[in-house]
């Protein structure tokens, strides 16, 4: 199954780059959903020989929440908000891509020592995890809209998940569910907030969300 992991890793990288390269909000959400779908598959692939009901259950719940529920929420929020459907980056898309490539390099560099320390299944999973986290941060930092920041946050979460999977951090159910619920709730609350923002502000533009400052 190892080769499949590499394929998934590459797909994840491509998803990240697509995220950075697109100018459309809907594409962003779509990409995150796709990423989550891929992630759901990773633990199954990694432990294909010792599949347990619990593992499958977790993977299923995860996939449902992150690939279906949350994107649906986001899409709804985006629709409610109206406004432009562009992501409105602070830095140009090309530059975003270039920075993304740079970040990938950094990830590879950082992953070196980590890999030595950890026990790698796929040479690519750890750098991909780091890369995904960084891209998530990059999206939060470099995009104007509040909703893209939620997207960035989700991407970051995805990266952390990849990391957990890569090191086979197999947590007891309670924590795992707790984590998932927290993420769900977080996004839900964020979505709610954005909904309020849309009512309070003319259109969702975090430019307007900078009246509180020193």
């Amino acid at each position, binding site marked *: 199954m190892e080769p499949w992991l590499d394929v998934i890793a590459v797909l994840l990288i491509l998803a990240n780059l697509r995220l950075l390269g697109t100018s459309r909000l809907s594409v962003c959400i779509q990409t995150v959903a796709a990423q989550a779908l891929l992630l759901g598959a990773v633990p199954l692939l990694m432990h294909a020989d010792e599949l347990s009901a619990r593992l499958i259950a977790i993977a299923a719940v995860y996939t449902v929440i992150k690939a279906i529920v949350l994107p649906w929420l986001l899409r709804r929020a985006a629709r409610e908000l109206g406004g432009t459907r562009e992501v409105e980056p602070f830095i140009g898309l090309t530059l975003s891509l270039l920075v993304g490539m740079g970040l990938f390099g950094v990830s590879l560099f950082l992953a070196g020592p980590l890999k030595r320390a950890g026990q790698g299944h796929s040479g690519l999973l750890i750098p991909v995890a780091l890369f995904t986290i960084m891209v998530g941060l990059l999206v*939060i930092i*470099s995009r104007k809209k509040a909703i893209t920041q939620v997207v960035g946050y989700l991407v970051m979460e995805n990266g952390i998940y990849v990391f957990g999977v890569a090191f086979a951090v197999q947590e007891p159910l309670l924590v795992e569910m707790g984590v998932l619920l927290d993420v769900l709730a977080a996004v839900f609350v964020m979505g709610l907030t954005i909904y309020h923002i849309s009512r309070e502000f003319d259109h969702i533009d975090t430019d307007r969300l*900078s009246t509180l400052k*020193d």
Partner: protein
Amino acid sequence: MSLYVAGLIVLLVGGAAALVAGRRPLANTLGALTAVAGGLLTLVSSAATLAGGAGAQWDLMRPWAMPGGSLHLGMDELSAFFAICISLISVLAAIYGRTYLADQQGRRHLGASWLFYNVLLASMLGVVASRNALLFLVAWELMSLSSFLLVMFDDKQPGVVSAGWTYLVAAHLGTAFLLVLFLLLGSSGSLEFSDLAAGPNLAGVCFVLALIGFGTKAGLVPLHVWLPEAHPAAPSHVSAVMSGVMIKTGIYGLLRILMLLGTPAIWWGYVLIGLGAISGVLGVLFALAQHDLKRLLAYHSVENIGIIVLGLGLGVLGAATNQPAMAVLGFAGGLLHVFNHAIFKSLLFLGAGSVAHAAGTRDLESLGGLLKRMPTTGATFLIGSAAIAGLPPLNGFVSELLIYLGAFGSAAARAGVTVYGAVAVILALGLIGGLALACFAKAFGIVFLGEPRTAAAAGAHESPAAMRWPMVVLAGLCIAIGLGCPLVAEALRPTVYAVAGALGLSVESDSPANEGMALVRRVLPYISLVAGALLVMIGGAGLLRWRLLRGRAVEPGLTWDCGYAAPTPRMQYTASSFADPILKVFRRLIRQQRQVHPPEGLLPAEASLHTHAQDPFTEGGYRPAFLAVMWLSGQVRRLQGGRNQVYVLYIALALLVLLVWKLGL
């Protein structure tokens, strides 16, 4: 011992009771009464300690549920001396204060005011009695806080809030140095005074820390800037306590630390002399430039602290170079001046309070002719003025004489390089003396003599008896100490010996340190003698004058104004004009804003001279520094620009930096 503790308890309980009484007139009486009662108890107790020798000293230790702390009080010669000063002045000021505040009864929350006053007293008495560093610091800050709260009593007046702020900040920042000081001294783990000791090579650091920390409280230049703000802002009986004794706790602290540090280094003496000289000269110069009576007095506190520190510096210099006579004279002079200054400065502040109370203003240029209207206040103020100017036969002269003697003795002995320190002391004292004389000639002359310059001054009335008596007592003390100086010096001897002994000088009865004391014993009777003779001669001359004028025509008339027959009060010389020539000589040292409109032309129109003296340390040092910090922080605030994206970037950067730095990834 039990009297002292009882006094503290009376003060605290009384203060609390006054607080409960709140706005009722009872609060005023209750607060003053307990302040007097508590002060008398501690006065008696500490006087007994000082008089009773080593046997009367006490030490009281109780556990305190506080890590590092203990309720450890003690009374030795030094503590007792300062406790006497504090109690005496506080009692008199409390008597004065009750009447001073009487017209606020029912309108203001006097209970709180008396609570703060009593806490101030208790904390000052606690400061001098504390034998545990933590307890000392708590008492120290309580003292600052309570006096700050008293300063804020008239917070509706313009400028008081900023004065209070300046004071609070100065007090607090000064304390920071003390924290470090005591922690360095207590690095062995215990914060009991008996266990405090400077680590190797740290004595100098400790001295500097003590100098800054305690110097701030004492008002040494350039740490004095709070003093001329805060003291005038407080009610006058509080100013008397603050200026008279509270700033002396700084001197106490400095002495206490010097005693803990043992044999001093030579440079400490030079530093003290240098700071003392600067404080003394600049203090009196700034005072001369003031037009606000209480502000003027406040600057004089800076000056007198300078004189005291000159004495201490001489003492430290003597201790460091083993010149016991000089050391003993320096310490004796400094300590006696602590006592003397407490007396005449509180007298002057009480007098200024009466003036402000009666005339409604403290502006010199609006006063005048008050001696006729307030005879007792005027006479006592005159005595205080002469005393603070160091004139015989009053007490101020005696303490300055002792310092002079130490310095002259060193010069006469031509004892190495320290002679130049001694010469500096003499020069500084001489200059201070001359300037103080000028300043008090101005203060007394403009306020009490001549004709009233405003209707308010013309309508002034003498204060009630309860305000006059404390002043009379203090003025009497000025004279009594001047005449009875040998007795006073004898009473002071244990304290001086304790200090000198702790600083590494041998004070056995046949040791050289006694030269100093022997000199004091030899000289002071002469001072009494000449002072007595002076009084007799004044009486004689008065008698002569009376004899000559008897039966002759003595007529009232107008002041002879060189043919100009109708002088008006506005034609009198003003305080600004009086001080102007001297200030011009020293114009480089003080920043005075002058607005001169000289008379012009053949028929000159209105001409005027307005001077406004700002403290150059405030204007040239602290304010620009504050503004620079403000500006800088204003620049840095852009970092908090309101954008989430940037904020997340900070997090990412922090993460990156830490990871790269710590793990070398």
